[in-house]
Every structure is written in C-alpha cells, then in structure tokens.
C-alpha cells in the first residue's frame, strides 16, 4: 500500500508496529506532492530539509510522533514564510511558533509545508490568493473552496496526512465539504489563536482537516486548551475527544433547522444530505425539525462584524515594522498609503473599506451596534435549539464546487456561498463537515459535505455522532483520480 494514502491514525499504527518509519512516510509524502501538486497547487512552499531532520529523530511514542502536518499560510511556524497569501507579506519569515505549532511539536508532529489560501482568509474559493491558484482535486477546473482551500485540497489529494486551517465564517468546513474531507471548527476559545494572523478576532478559530473523524478527534486532543498568550482561550477541564467514538446513536436527537432546507440548495446536494439524514434514522437517531429564526440575517451581520474587526486588525500592515514597503517615498503618509495600496489585493481592500465605513463616525450605531444586537439573537436561536437536540444536521454548502472564475466578479454572490456556515461563527459553537456523497456535474463527481453543528464545548459528542455515520457509509474511502 502506498504510505501517502494512509490516515493519520493508520500511519501512526504502522510506525508503532515497526512496519514503517517517519522518514519513509515523509519521503512517500514528498514523492506524492511532487507528482500531483503541480496540478492541485495546494502548497506554497515546503522545508524538506528541516522536516527530514525532524523525522530522523522523531519519538513515535508521542501522541502524534513523526507525523507531518501541513499548515495554512496564516499560522506562524518559526523559520518558515508566513504570508497569508498576500503580497504585503512576501518575504516575511516567522520569528516564533504559534501556540498550536508548539503543541504539535510537543506531541511529536512535524509541521511541514505552507498551504495556499484566500488572501488574509478573505474568500470562499482560494481565488483571492495573491500568490497561486489552487484547484479542486476532483475537477481541476473547479475551486477547492476557501479560505482554507490549500488545507482541504492537499488532504483530499493524499498530499498530506492532515492539515491545519482557520475558520472565520466557514473557512474550514466549506472547503472540507467541497474537497471531500473532514473539517472541524472547534468552539470559539477551545484552541489558542496566538500566532494565527488575525482576521476577525471574535470569530477566528483554528481547526484540523483530516481524512477521518477519528483523526480529527486525535488532533483536537493536541490542539485544544487554555493558553496564557490568548486571553480569549477557555479554561476547561482536559478531555479525550475520542471518548464517544464507536458509541451507538440510540437516544440521540438531531435537529433539522427548517431555515437551512429552503430553496436555493442544489438538488443533488439536497438529495445527498437527505439520504444522510435517513441513514442517521436507520442508525437509531431521532430526527426533529427545529427553527433558527434569524438565519436570514446571518450573512449581513457577518459582513459587518467581520469587516469591522478586519479593518482594525489589518491596520498593522503599514510597511513600517515588517512586510512589503513601497519605494521612492515622499513622507511617512506616503509610506503607509502606498505600502498598503500596493500590497493588499482587491478583496482585502474592499473589506477594509467596508469595515472602516461601518465603524466610522455617524454610522457605528446603524451598522455595527445593530449587527452586534442581531448577533445576540442568532446566538439565542442556537441556545434554544440545543435545549431540544444534541446536534443540528444540514448541508455545509448549498452547492458543490463551482468553476474557477465563475463568481470572482460578484462579491455578494460569493458571500452568500457561506450561508450555512456563518451563523456558527457568530454564535461561537462548534461544527464539523464530513463527506456524504457526490454530485455529478459535467461528467465529474464532486464531493458533497454534511454539516453537523454542536453546542458550545460539545466537540466530543459531535465527533461521536459524526463517526457513527462515517463508519456506516463508504464516502470517506473515496479518492479523486489524479
């Protein structure tokens, strides 16, 4: 069997039985990347020499000992580039490890490679990368989703055993759905954001992309926990996120939010998700209808709050202390204005301007404060729903992967692609996307994602519910032909 096709946990088992070694696994992975990444375009760079020396001395008794993990280009790894796929950070080298990287290293894992994304995580297709195009491994003429498009594509294409991404409005779950892998957005505060370049600080959360639900749980075991360097990380008791894997679904209640099953969903996506719901019933779960009445306002609330926070967070990119600086400068104002105007891409500028406007004098109450109040109502919708059910079940994305270039001229239409994922970030709870079938488009099979949403801090239960379905269906074993 080719080593690169293994899941994280199967690879780990082979290390421990002595069938293979971290060095062999790394070489197999590199061979695979060299063969298919020219088509997929998931990686921006790889530091093979460093990974080789880490693999040679890896301690396989550690929880993730010797396993290479690919990293979205927005999370700092000391000595690696970190550009957020932006020209403004070209040439930037991280001088420290993010907390998640420190935790991966302590668990024996090898951070390997930088993954393409939408610039500063702003986008739903990875087309906003200023550096490179990434394709969907199932159909190279289509987008991989975004913003963590590289993170999803490399796992789906067996170019990584697992990867890290970040999710501000669906940026883990949506590309996972479109590429056919498992993507987990933990509860806000579950995973430290220290060393993640900030987009919207009250919404951003780091999470894993994996080939299986079990691998997702194993990674969360390592990534989660209170961090003194992130004052918004939560103090919670240590727990084992694999503890509900393998449990049956008797007594489990799943809620179908009626606002998530209305017009606008692609018929093939709808059919795959409804078949998954029937499968849950067959496994013994009870399905009930629930309501999240403020769903239709989520996209509007999100694009006010996320852009407002982004306009403040991205003020730091001014060409003074790091990043790209414009040349032939007249004065300090010129330095700021030209470094930013030349360095930021179009979508980033658009969002900074929108965020600046909604926070500007005279408009704050009408836009930002009102959006924060509607955010409260959206949170309450979820609180009420989770009083009745263990998890919510719905599509991750209303459609399968669209063609590269199809949406790039219409930002509003692109924003509406996140309609089923955004409310979760506003409410702060956890969510997972896992494969539930395929849509056939122009003779190609395109993955469809099932989204399960869990209550705050109920990742273990959510992973258990996801695992039961995964193990009873063949979808997670399917691979694209590359």
């Amino acid at each position: 069997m080719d080593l690169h096709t293994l899941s994280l946990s199967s690879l780990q088992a082979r290390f421990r039985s002595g069938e293979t070694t971290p060095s062999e696994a790394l070489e197999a992975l590199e061979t695979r990347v060299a063969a298919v990444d020219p088509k997929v375009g998931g990686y921006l760079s790889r530091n093979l020499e460093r990974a080789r020396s880490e693999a040679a001395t890896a301690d396989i008794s550690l929880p993730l000992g010797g396993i290479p993990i690919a990293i979205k280009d927005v999370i700092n790894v000391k000595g690696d580039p970190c550009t957020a796929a932006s020209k403004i950070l070209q040439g930037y080298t991280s001088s420290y490890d993010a907390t998640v990287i420190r935790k991966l290293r302590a668990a024996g894992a090898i951070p390997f490679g930088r993954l393409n994304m939408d610039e500063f995580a702003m986008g739903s297709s990875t087309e906003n990368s200023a550096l490179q195009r990434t394709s969907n491994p199932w159909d190279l003429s289509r987008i991989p989703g975004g913003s963590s498009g590289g993170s999803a594509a490399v796992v789906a294409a067996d170019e990584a055993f697992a990867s890290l991404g970040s999710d501000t409005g669906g940026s883990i779950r949506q590309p996972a759905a479109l590429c056919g892998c498992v993507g987990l957005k933990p509860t806000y505060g579950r995973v430290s954001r220290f060393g993640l370049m900030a987009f919207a600080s009250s919404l951003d959360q780091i999470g894993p992309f994996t080939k299986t639900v079990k691998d997702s749980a194993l990674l969360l075991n390592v990534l989660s926990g209170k961090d003194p360097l992130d004052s918004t990380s939560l103090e919670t008791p240590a727990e084992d996120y694999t503890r509900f894997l393998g449990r049956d679904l008797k007594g489990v209640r799943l809620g179908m939010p009626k606002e998530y099953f209305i017009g606008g969903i692609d018929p093939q996506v709808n059919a795959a998700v409804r078949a998954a719901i029937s499968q849950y019933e067959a496994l013994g779960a009870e399905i009930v209808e629930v309501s999240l009445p403020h769903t239709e306002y989520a996209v509007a609330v999100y694009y006010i709050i996320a852009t407002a926070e982004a306009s403040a967070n991205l003020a730091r990119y001014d060409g003074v202390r790091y990043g790209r600086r414009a040349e032939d400068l007249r004065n300090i104002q010129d330095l700021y204005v030209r470094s930013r105007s030349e360095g930021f891409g179009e979508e980033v500028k658009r969002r900074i301007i929108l965020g600046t406007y909604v926070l500007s004098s005279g408009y704050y109450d009408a836009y930002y404060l009102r959006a924060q109040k509607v955010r409260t109502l959206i949170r309450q919708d979820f609180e009420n729903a989770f009083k009745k059910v263990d998890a919510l079940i719905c599509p991750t994305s209303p459609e399968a992967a669209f063609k590269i270039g199809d949406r790039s001229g219409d930002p509003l239409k692109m924003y509406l692609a996140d309609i089923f994922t955004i409310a979760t970030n506003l409410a702060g709870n956890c969510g997972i996307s896992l494969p539930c079938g395929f849509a056939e488009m122009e003779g190609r099979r395109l993955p469809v994602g099932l989204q399960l949403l869990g209550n705050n801090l109920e990742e273990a239960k959510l992973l258990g519910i996801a695992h039961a379905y995964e193990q009873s269906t063949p979808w997670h074993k399917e691979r694209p032909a590359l």
Partner: protein
Amino acid sequence: MSAEFDVRHTAHLARLELSETEATRFQSQLSQILGYVEKLKEVDVSGVEPTAHTAEFLNVFRADEPRDWFTTEEALSNAPRQANHLIIVPKVIE
C-alpha cells in the same frame, strides 16, 4: 444611508489609495452590499444587548513577570529598513 457612501473618503480613512477603476468598481459593489445589509433594519432589537464576544470574558489578568521573549535581532528580523537596532522611516516631522 448607502446613498451617502463615498468610497474615496472611506478609503482615505483606512490609508488606502484607489485607482480610478477600483474606485468605480468598489463604489458600486460596496453600495450593493450596504443595500443588502439594510435588511437588518427589519429586526426588532429593542432591549437586546449587543454581543461583542461569544464567551463572556471579564478582565483577564496574568502575573506581571519577566519571561523569555524575542531578542532585538528577532524582533527586527522582518523590518524593511533598519540600522543600529532601529527601524528607519521617512522623516515624520517636516
């Protein structure tokens, strides 16, 4: 409200300079988005507290103790121009 949106003025507040093409395109795209978010006016928010953060954090303190952190060289390692442990910028005061 969106009728008053002036893309150039707002870009200036964010220290961005737009080309003619960008200004025209953004003016129309952002006006459309501002039109879309007008739907929030339909919602009755009387008596609703705003949410800034989903977890309820009060002040988060830590002990004020020195610890290992960047060296000066590390902190300046990405500076576009530097000399003598200082970052060089154009003259700030004319």
